[in-house]
């Protein structure tokens, strides 16, 4: 298993973070929300410049780690583009990206994009995206699908894990913003960070973020080494990612106070745009149910199983 990404992957992630910042940083998501049709034009050139589409996360471990680092950096800036989904594109279908969908009301964050997409259910049924419904919040749209085959089981784990890396990047940023805020904001003549009640809430959030970080690396290793339980590991990661996001965003909003809800505050954008990652293809309860059903009484691979 891996306890950290390679130095090259981490450096690539830092480079991506700088590139997104240079392209507009926090302004990107605001511009895209105003004109969803501009998403490709806003972000596509940055990703191409980084060499994102040359990464090979399916057959190359270095490429897989670099893809994860890229997704994390995209999450950090709430980049308004399905980076993880593009990187998960299947090799044997003529598609630019892959969306993992639920069996009912298949949806994805594809509003405003004209690229060619494939979809796969958790059971491996693959489809082409033949049409998009009306755009909802967070660029979510229902997908019209045309069935292709049932050969997508091997696609699912990667399609679930990379978006968790995006969500992890959002949690990195949310905590970073919150630490800055409570270090500056004063009440009763002292910074918020000097209150133990504030400090302890912050640690609750950090434990969740830190735990997600290590589980994300485990799930990546599981895919990269073709572990037989890679899908269970991916679902386990997803369950933890959603739980972590719930804790982190709740704490970060609380510690930001009213200003955290204002559009002039980055947290407000991160929080809103984390929602599709947390609800699609399955929310917390459905993800846990799916994992429970799949593992039966065997549980997860570990010290005693």
């Amino acid at each position, binding site marked *: 298993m891996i306890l950290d990404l390679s130095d090259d992957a981490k450096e690539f992630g830092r480079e991506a973070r700088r590139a997104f910042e240079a392209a507009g940083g926090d302004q990107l998501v605001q511009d895209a929300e105003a004109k969803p049709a501009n998403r490709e034009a806003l972000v596509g050139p940055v990703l191409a410049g980084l060499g994102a589409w040359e990464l090979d996360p399916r057959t190359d471990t270095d490429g897989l780690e670099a893809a994860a680092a890229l997704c994390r950096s995209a999450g950090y800036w709430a980049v308004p583009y399905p980076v993880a989904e593009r990187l998960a594109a299947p090799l044997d279908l003529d598609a630019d990206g892959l969306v993992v969908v639920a069996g009912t009301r298949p949806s994805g964050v594809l509003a405003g994009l004209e690229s060619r997409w494939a979809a796969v259910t958790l059971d491996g049924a693959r489809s082409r995206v033949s049409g998009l419904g009306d755009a909802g919040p967070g660029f979510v749209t229902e997908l019209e699908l045309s069935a292709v085959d049932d050969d997508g089981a091997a696609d699912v784990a990667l399609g679930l894990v990379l978006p968790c890396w995006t969500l992890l990047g959002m949690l990195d940023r949310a905590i970073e913003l919150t630490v800055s805020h409570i270090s500056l904001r004063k009440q009763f003549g002292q910074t918020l960070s000097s209150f133990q009640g504030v400090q302890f809430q912050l640690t609750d959030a950090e*434990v969740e973020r830190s735990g997600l970080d290590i589980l994300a690396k485990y799930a990546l290793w599981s895919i990269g080494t073709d572990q037989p339980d890679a899908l269970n590991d991916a679902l386990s990661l997803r369950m933890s990612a959603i739980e972590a996001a719930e804790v982190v965003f709740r704490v970060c909003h609380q510690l930001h106070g009213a200003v955290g809800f204002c559009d002039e505050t980055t947290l407000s954008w991160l929080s809103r745009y984390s929602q599709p990652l947390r609800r699609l293809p399955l929310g917390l309860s459905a993800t846990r149910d799916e994992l429970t059903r799949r593992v039966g*009484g065997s549980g*997860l691979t570990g010290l005693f199983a």
Partner: protein
Amino acid sequence: MGQKADELRADLRELVNSNMPEHFLGAFTDDPADLEAAQAFCRLLAERNLLCLSWPEEFGGGAASVWEQTVVREEMWAHHEPRGAQYMGVNWVGPIIMRHGTEEQQQKHLPPIARGEVIWCQGFSEPEAGSDLASLRTTARPDGDGWLVSGQKIWTSYATMAQWCFLLARTTKGEKKQQGLTIFLVPMDDPAIQVRPIRCMMGPHHLNEVFFDDLRVTQADVLGTVDDGWSIVQEVTSFERVGIARYARCERLLAAAPTILGNRWDELSAELRGRWVRMLTHCRRARLMAYRVVSLQSSGRIKPGDAAAYRIAVTKLDQDSAEVLMEIAAEVSHDDPRAAWFLGEVEDHWKYSQASTVSSGSIEMQRILLSRTLLAAAK
């Protein structure tokens, strides 16, 4: 973790399965046979050079890798610490004496620890000095060529069975409260020491009061430098940074639950089975966080917050998994031949877990450490 670590895990499991009673729930029960079983197991480990695996070769150890040491922590805790109280001597008393002890102290104390023959207790906490340890009041006042120690320790585990105490006392009133403290290595059979057990939910021997009434100590009993004991305390803390591998016992019991339930497993509510899966994920999370701490520590890149985040996660896991296991245990048929084993294990786990956020550095102290690290990084 590597082939050597995997082989070690298999060896340790075989030794535990072959030599420890199935219903062993730790050495500290009212049944003296449990302590005898643990002592015999320690001698067995010592004979196979497995007891002091982590020690340097020059002190008769196995110079084990950090991952082999991790395996030992996991397997011992998963199986109710069959080394009994010896783990303390092996894990940190011995290594601290290697670093700070005189040659005479090393010759006197290290061989019995390495043979698994001696039990130590830690004389740190006091009624008015828990997390704020440096506020302790036990004093060693000068007397001739030595000192007379007076005061009270509390929550002292294994004091009733220990032969030696790793005692922290105030020798001088320093400018700061961390100054003027000294470590003494004192024999527990001295008549100036009285031990009073405190009955508690974890069972006997876990908690005791220890009273020192003009205990005479000399320079030969001092570990390190007089008045500079606090730096040794800090080192003890760093030895305990990763601490007990609590996740290993949680995982062992959670993994056993479906087998114990048998066909009835699928009849459990989906909600309870979902909580069980969630706990397995949290076991994995805590285990990987522990591995990250081990890796960072071995490469010298660790920050206090790294270990604190893990300690918070693993102690919460201990308590959360105990609640889930108690709920599962309520569904176990008592006719099952292994029911008694499982129910005993789960009840013991639940009782122990209540203390996990209090002992060896409370969760509040861990939160303070973690928040300091986070806030310092922002400056």
